[in-house]
């Protein structure tokens, strides 16, 4: 009797197609909606366990303070500390965000590893929501970090002199660039076997890029052989762009270079990540 009750219902291809259509897993609207839901879930986890969020924000802020204290008199002898703070802050926030990409890569690895991803794959939601959600919540995380460092920088003399548009650009440009960098971390995380691998692969690249940039010292401070590398380093270009945005000077050329870099990284590593993610199970 039971077996009769459980007998297959009449399912012709049309009914199945209608059911799938009713779930509406695809489509732009659905995808965006699901990404926002997953991103909000990720952010709630961040807010309820804020140790890593707070530490990464405080760490870059403390680097700003400490380097202002120790290098201001070396780089700009005889001048006050606030001039160097104005010079250093854009770079200090870029550096903080770049270190954060390691954390973001590890978070994504944990998403894939702790069953969250399998759960998402089994649910009637857009396929892209695991990657997109993590990317969006990481963007929020980075924005909080920039805001913290700007507020802290205000105490030691950092000021926006370029109006509202410049300030908005100042906040968004490093976040966009860092998110495109974070995609490299995502790609590594999809293939990694442990969380340590993710940070071991990502960490060593960050320091050379930050040291060999016009971050701590102006270009004249570098040895002659290093100067061509330093001026072409994306981190330098980004720092220069943010400096111009903060002080109200024309920044369009550097901003466009950074946006093109971000776009290239997004296209390359975004595609690689999505393809690797599709093959993962």
């Amino acid at each position: 009797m039971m077996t009769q009750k459980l007998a297959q219902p009449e399912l012709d291809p049309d009914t199945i197609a209608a059911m799938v259509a009713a779930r509406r897993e695809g489509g732009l609207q659905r995808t965006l909606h699901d990404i926002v839901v997953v991103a909000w879930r990720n952010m709630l986890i961040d807010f309820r366990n804020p140790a890593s969020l707070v530490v990464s924000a405080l760490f870059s802020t403390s680097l700003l303070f400490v380097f202002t204290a120790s290098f201001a008199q070396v780089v700009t002898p005889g001048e006050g500390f606030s001039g160097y703070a104005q010079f250093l802050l854009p770079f200090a926030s870029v550096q903080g965000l770049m270190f954060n990409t390691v954390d973001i890569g590890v978070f994504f690895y944990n998403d894939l590893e702790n069953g969250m991803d399998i759960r998402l794959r089994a649910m009637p939601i857009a396929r892209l929501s695991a990657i997109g959600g993590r990317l969006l919540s990481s963007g929020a995380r980075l924005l909080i970090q920039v805001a913290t460092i700007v507020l802290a920088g205000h105490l030691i003399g950092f000021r926006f002199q370029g109006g509202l548009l410049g300030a908005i650009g100042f906040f968004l440009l490093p976040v966009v660039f860092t998110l495109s960098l974070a995609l490299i971390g995502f790609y590594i995380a999809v293939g990694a076997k442990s969380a340590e691998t993710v940070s071991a692969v990502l960490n060593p690249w960050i320091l050379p890029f930050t040291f060999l940039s016009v971050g701590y010292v102006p270009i004249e401070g570098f040895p002659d052989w290093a100067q061509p590398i330093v001026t072409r380093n994306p981190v330098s270009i980004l720092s220069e762009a943010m400096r111009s945005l903060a002080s109200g000077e024309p920044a369009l050329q550097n901003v466009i270079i950074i946006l093109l870099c971000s776009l290239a990284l997004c296209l390359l590593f975004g595609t690689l990540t999505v393809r690797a993610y599709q093959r993962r199970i």
Partner: protein
Amino acid sequence: MSNSKENMRATKVEAIAPEISALAQKMIAKRQETGWRRAIVDSWLITGRNLIRLKRNPIIIVAIAIFPIVFLAGFWIVGQKLMATQGVNYIQYLVPIINLQALFFAGLGSALMFAQDIESGMMDRCRAMPIARIATIAGLVMAYMVRALLSTLILLLVAFAIFGFRFQGSVIDALGYLLLIVIFTATCITGYSVLAIKLRRPDLVNAVAIIPYTPLLLLSNGFSPTENFPTWLQPIIRYQPVSVTSDALRSLVAGGSNSLPLFGFSLLWLVGLLVVFGVWAKNAYKQLV
């Protein structure tokens, strides 16, 4: 029926009880959980286990060899020209603090492994086993001491071969350098073990462990001479332990005659901190379970 059976068993147990307890005494004596020799053997065993764990972790090559060298190269490229205008030979100035930083990161790594051992139950397992109590802590310190000294060796060799760093002191100065390095590492690891015992969760330790880095390492005269700091900060910069130790290391490298008072001052700081952290860690460890 069952009652009489139980009685019989009870009398039987009573009869052999003295024998059992004598046997147990003998067995405990045989296990020899205490004593110096046992402590050393067990510590060595745990050290070996920790070293195997270190060896199998891919991040370790990065942490030991690449990180200190990248920091050395980075600060050197950034600071060399500017420091030269202040009359500082920056590579000679920089190597000691980069060395201390490498030791500091060894301490940081030890906290992470300690927290993982607490979480995974390794600590409970060690307590349940017939080994010396001290072996778990001593094994951790010794394994990370090996890591720290290896890191120091690689750093000094690279600084010598590529960057032109020269040790100008005598053999006694070199021994003094080594002694300070070893004690600094021990102090770092002990201090960080307090953090690991108090926090217990590896992810939390990982997030928090970087916090002492900025005030201790960066707010020191290791990277930039004291005179470059704001006036009100200078007394703190000058007398904090990392500054004093890097001062001592630099004077040992330079081989001057004034290194003895600096060495003594640094030793006083480090041993004092080691005792404080050691007592604290011991008490915290006792309350761990």
